[in-house]
């Protein structure tokens, strides 16, 4: 039956919530199926035009529906991956962890970069000539500084005032909230609430 492979693509999206390696092999198979559907339709529609053989018409229509279905599956696959990438930008910031990066194809990496650019450009245009970072303070802040525990060796971190601190595993710090927030979301620091 037509459309089985396209369906497989979509059920893969449905089964796993995170971004899997781009399933190029399956996409190729779907495209092959579409190509053969198209070829058969071209042959049949030529026959209809030349011999006025209208009996072929229903088959052409059936294949056309199958073509549209396959197109929908592929577009939905690409679109939904893109949506997940967009969510990642807001969760993890402009640099993706290598585990996710390796699962992307070139076009997706390029898209992510241009999304980054657009977002950065927009955020720069906000506020009085300083720009405004929309990804900070996802929950209303109550204090300017927060106490954090470092759970991973991170290395040197330069604060806004030029001070450099060393983030080593199992050390405690009192740091400006805006600096910590992305690091906490990436799992490098841990918020110690009192």
């Amino acid at each position, binding site marked *: 039956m037509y*459309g089985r492979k396209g369906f497989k693509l979509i059920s893969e999206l449905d089964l796993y919530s995170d971004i899997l390696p781009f399933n190029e092999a399956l996409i190729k198979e779907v495209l092959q199926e579409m190509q053969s559907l198209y070829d058969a339709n071209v042959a049949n529609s030529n026959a209809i035009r030349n011999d006025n053989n209208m*009996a072929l018409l*229903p*088959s052409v229509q059936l294949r056309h*529906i199958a073509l549209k279905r396959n197109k929908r599956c592929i577009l*939905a696959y690409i679109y939904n991956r893109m949506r997940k990438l967009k969510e*990642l930008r807001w*969760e993890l910031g402009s640099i993706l962890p290598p585990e996710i990066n390796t699962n992307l194809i070139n076009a997706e990496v390029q898209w992510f970069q241009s999304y980054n650019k657009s977002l950065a450009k927009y955020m720069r245009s906000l506020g009085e000539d300083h720009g405004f970072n929309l990804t900070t303070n996802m929950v209303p802040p109550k204090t300017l500084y927060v106490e954090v525990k470092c759970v991973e060796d991170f290395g040197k971190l330069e604060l806004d005032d030029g001070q450099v601190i060393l983030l080593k595993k199992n050390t405690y710090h009192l740091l400006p909230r805006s600096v910590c927030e992305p690091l906490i979301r*990436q799992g490098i620091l841990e*918020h110690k609430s009192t």
Partner: protein
Amino acid sequence: MACCQSYIPDYFAITDILSTEERISCKIEVELPGLGFLDSSCQSENLKVGTKVEFPLWLAEPLKNLQNSVVSVDIPKIYKEGYREILEADAEVIVLSKWNPFYYELGMHVRKFSDRDYEIITESLLQTFKSRFQLVMDWSQNAMSDPTLSIQLPRLERDLFLIGQQAKIRLVEWLKMGTNELVVSEITTNLKKRKREQYEFD
């Protein structure tokens, strides 16, 4: 941050694509040349008039809606009178996901097949949802509820159940005045879990 879809079901909606894969039994009304292989029991090259086939919904619906219908369709039995009566009697005790994991979504498509039953199926879907909604709501508000529960629910109810559960947890947190804590992104946690699994595997 969740990036919402504009309207449901849209062209890219995963659930809509999944639910329209459901098989519908059709009868061929016009001969289809060269497509005999679509029916596995068929030996000839063409699909003959009167052959019974199982077409997925995405194929059956547009074929029926063509100017001269190529197929005539039969409504799946779970939307027919007998099953509607079961739901009318007591919708809460039925494991609806066993009937079909996309019971409501599929129903919204299937009802268009029959002019006669259009209103009745719509009404039946609405009543079923109404009477089960209370149950779903109850389950989601009880933190102790059985984790296997969500498997018993069809997709629409399952999503509501999970959303309800999350809302409950967030409410409890908020009541404890603990909303100010910064937390690790869910994605990072998942990545770490996978790394650990790999490590143990090696």
